[in-house]
């Protein structure tokens, strides 16, 4: 589980860069300094590090990027091309990691706080510093440390107690690499008060031919009896590499639903960590990855049951075509006090081409006895008999395949609650299935 320390130059080069960039007067300078030290100690994952066994992020950073090169401002004139039409929401747009007020619209500011994180750090300093960097573990992962030391901006949401927010909050992360390589580090902090509820959606898109790398971290604290729905739609074109970490801290009787849709990109690594630090918690994690070309999607999830009587359920499904690779690692920890835990996990994969690969590692670590835990994972191809059945009824082969794959993905999609988002995803997926598979 420990990430092997590399003695490569990239780590020290980047650490030196982080030291140089740090603004000594910033109110979170101490946090950033500690994170830089942690980054130096952990080091970028070595080639055979267990946690990055199939995901050669370090090598890519070394080969494809010049770390000291500044990121261009980015010009995305057609922001509308990437937005979800018809969705009533508060919107924040980040272009190459920089907040773009002109493209953003925040209406609901009376009952709750929605701000770019930099602004929040200036205006709500105490509240931000109370939570920032307190959950995502800089000592365990180099990318989390890097982000904590170098983040430029992101979302800050504070939902006060008893406030149920109807309008979702959407973040569009656009990467424009048409004027050279892009490296971004965005950071989100979500604080949900008691009995409150909020839905947040992040969407990733990109343009430009140069490589772009993003390292984003989201920390969320969900108080007693509160609810959080967190969506992530990763739909990047081109030479797009990203490592993302979401860390959610849950208190008693809170409810969390996370959705991760990976539809495109060169390399996508998602770390999703749920800490169930309370009783009566309910958590659902859904994931869907539809991969073509040489995309690599790596989902590492952790559910940490720390108190009794909680429930967690995880469903990740994937379809791999071309020379793509799907990696899944799902850890379930049940700590000694977490009696009466119910934890379930399933990972199902379909390989469409002879050159696609799946590497999956479901992992249960259980120290309490009165629990019900299970995991299951499968890998296979489409049932030939079913395809034959459809074809014998006059449906051509590709449509038959698309139909079956659509049904396969439906199990994840059906859990999406917002109708506009659901329809948008439904269209996106069925277009993909008909076009690419």
């Amino acid at each position: 589980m420990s990430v092997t320390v590399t003695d490569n130059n990239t780590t020290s080069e980047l650490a030196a860069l982080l030291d140089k960039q740090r603004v000594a007067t910033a109110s979170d300078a101490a946090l950033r300094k500690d994170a830089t030290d942690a980054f130096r100690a952990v080091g970028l994952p070595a080639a055979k590090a267990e946690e990055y066994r199939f995901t050669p992020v370090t090598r890519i950073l070394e080969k494809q990027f010049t770390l000291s090169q500044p990121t261009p401002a980015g010009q995305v004139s057609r922001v509308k091309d990437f937005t979800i039409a018809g969705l009533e929401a508060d919107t924040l747009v980040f272009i190459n990691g920089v907040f773009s007020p002109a493209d953003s619209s925040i209406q609901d500011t009376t009952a709750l706080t929605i701000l770019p994180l930099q602004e929040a750090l200036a205006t709500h300093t105490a509240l931000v510093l109370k939570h920032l960097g307190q959950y995502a573990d800089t000592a365990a992962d180099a990318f989390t440390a890097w982000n904590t030391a170098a983040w430029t901006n992101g979302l800050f949401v504070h939902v006060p107690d008893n406030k149920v927010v109807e309008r979702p909050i959407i973040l569009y992360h656009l990467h424009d690499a048409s004027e050279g390589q892009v490296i971004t580090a965005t950071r989100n902090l979500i604080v949900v008060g008691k009995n409150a509820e909020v839905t947040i959606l992040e969407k990733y898109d990109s343009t430009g031919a140069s490589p772009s790398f993003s390292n984003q971290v989201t920390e969320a604290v969900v108080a007693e009896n509160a609810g959080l729905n967190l969506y992530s739609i990763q739909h990047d074109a081109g030479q797009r590499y990203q490592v993302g970490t979401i860390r959610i801290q849950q208190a008693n009787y809170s409810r969390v639903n996370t959705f991760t849709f990976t539809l495109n990109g060169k390399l996508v690594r998602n770390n999703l960590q749920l800490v169930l630090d309370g009783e009566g918690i309910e958590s659902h994690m859904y994931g869907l990855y539809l991969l073509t070309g040489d995309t690599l999607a790596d989902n590492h999830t952790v559910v940490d049951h720390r108190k009794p009587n909680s429930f967690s359920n995880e469903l990740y499904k994937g379809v791999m075509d071309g020379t793509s690779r799907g990696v899944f690692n799902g850890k379930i920890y049940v700590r000694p006090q977490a009696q009466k835990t119910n934890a379930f996990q399933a990972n199902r994969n379909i390989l469409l081409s002879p050159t696609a690969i799946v590497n999956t590692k479901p992992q249960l670590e259980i120290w309490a006895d009165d629990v019900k835990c299970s995991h299951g994972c499968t890998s296979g191809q489409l049932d030939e008999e079913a395809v034959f059945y459809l074809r014998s009824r006059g449906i051509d082969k590709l449509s038959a395949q698309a139909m079956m794959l659509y049904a396969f993905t439906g199990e994840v999609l059906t859990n999406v609650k917002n109708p506009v988002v659901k329809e948008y995803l439904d269209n996106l997926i069925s277009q993909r299935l008909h076009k690419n598979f």
Partner: protein
Amino acid sequence: MSKDNQVLEELTSKEYEHGWTTDIETDSAPKGLNEDIIRFISAKKNEPAWLLEWRMKAYQQWTKMKEPTWANVKFPEINYQDVIYYSAPKQKVTPKNLEDVDPELIKTFEKLGISLTEQKRLTGIAVDAVIDSVSVATTFKETLGELGIIFCSFSEAVQKHPDLVKKYMGSVVPVNDNYFSALNSAVFTDGSFCYIPKGVRCPMELSTYFRINAANTGQFERTLIVADEGSYVSYLEGCTAPQRDENQLHAAVVEIYAMKDATVKYSTVQNWYPGNKEGKGGIYNFVTKRGLCYGDSSKISWTQVETGSAITWKYPSCILRGDNSMGEFYSVAVTNNYQQADTGTKMIHIGKNTKSRIVSKGISAGHSQNSYRGQVHIMKRAEGARNFSQCDSLLMGDQCGAHTFPYIDVENNTARIEHEATTSKIGEDQIFYCLQRGIDEESAVALIVNGYAKEVLNQLPMEFAVEAQKLLALTLEGSVG
């Protein structure tokens, strides 16, 4: 709850049955490991030069390797210089037949329930008995010899069948495969060798019984089974050790080589001394077991019942090279008190239409930690490969842990892989169901545990199944936390 705990206490506190020692004079090497010791062992065994060279190479490689740390077990660092690498019971003459064998040794094995006198045996099992570093007797050699089956101690095979040994030794588990296999290759002292010729179905179970007796010694044996085309053999392995306060090291290597249409079934009931209730003493069991399904349609089946050892580090694996070959792994691993087990299997699918099946049942009680670690790897060429894995864990008591680390790597789209794992304790409703039908709590638990492990126990040859069931009962009955 308190009553349950009492039942648990009573039943899990049963003493280790084979903890006694035999007072035999031994001939042993001084403590420590260096080239001289290896030369000493080689000279003791009167080995040909090529084997000594092989050992030396292995030693050289071992000195460059590092002890693996990835397993989910914790133990103080082993001082490899504090182990006696060779210890043999002193015998006045080299025994030509059973009458010459030291009666004290025969008695030792009789006490363990292993009779070395053929006439007295009712069951048709041929035994190779190994105490500390050497094999003392092999039974039914002649009966087997008539069929062309070679079954003897490893040392004897080196003398009598050097070609076979030279050809197959290290072909399945290379010297530098891992830290412990390299160590074993350098200092192995004895073990069993078995060759089944073409088309022969071995008429009886072949068995090796390992006993560690002397203090401070390590046991490093090597077993090599070669099954020629179309042959069949069922092989059993049993082991026990006396109760001692210090930890003893056991690092064995088992290699199975199956040619076209051959079937090998390998069963183990591992009952090394697990240490006392406080976790003091016990055997460190670091074993490399691997089978190669070299020929088409060959089959290797591993069955293991792991109840002993302070620490178990063992992954009996199958390399499915031949087309249509098949690998199986059935395991019941029981840990109690402070035992730690990290065990599982590897199924490497290389050939077309290869099949594998994994059934692993872990039971943890007391303060023990029980891990399943396995890999199913479907290589690019393995068209139509099929795997089914099931690993279940049963927890008894709130101080123990159960862990599963399955790795599933698929590189061929026609492969079908299923994996499932569950962790739970014995349900109160199940117990209640039995109680209301007049079955007392203790028997109910025994019933449920036995049912839980049945799928694996069914794979064992009958004599072993009985022993295994007894062992299970001894370690666990009544453990509802």
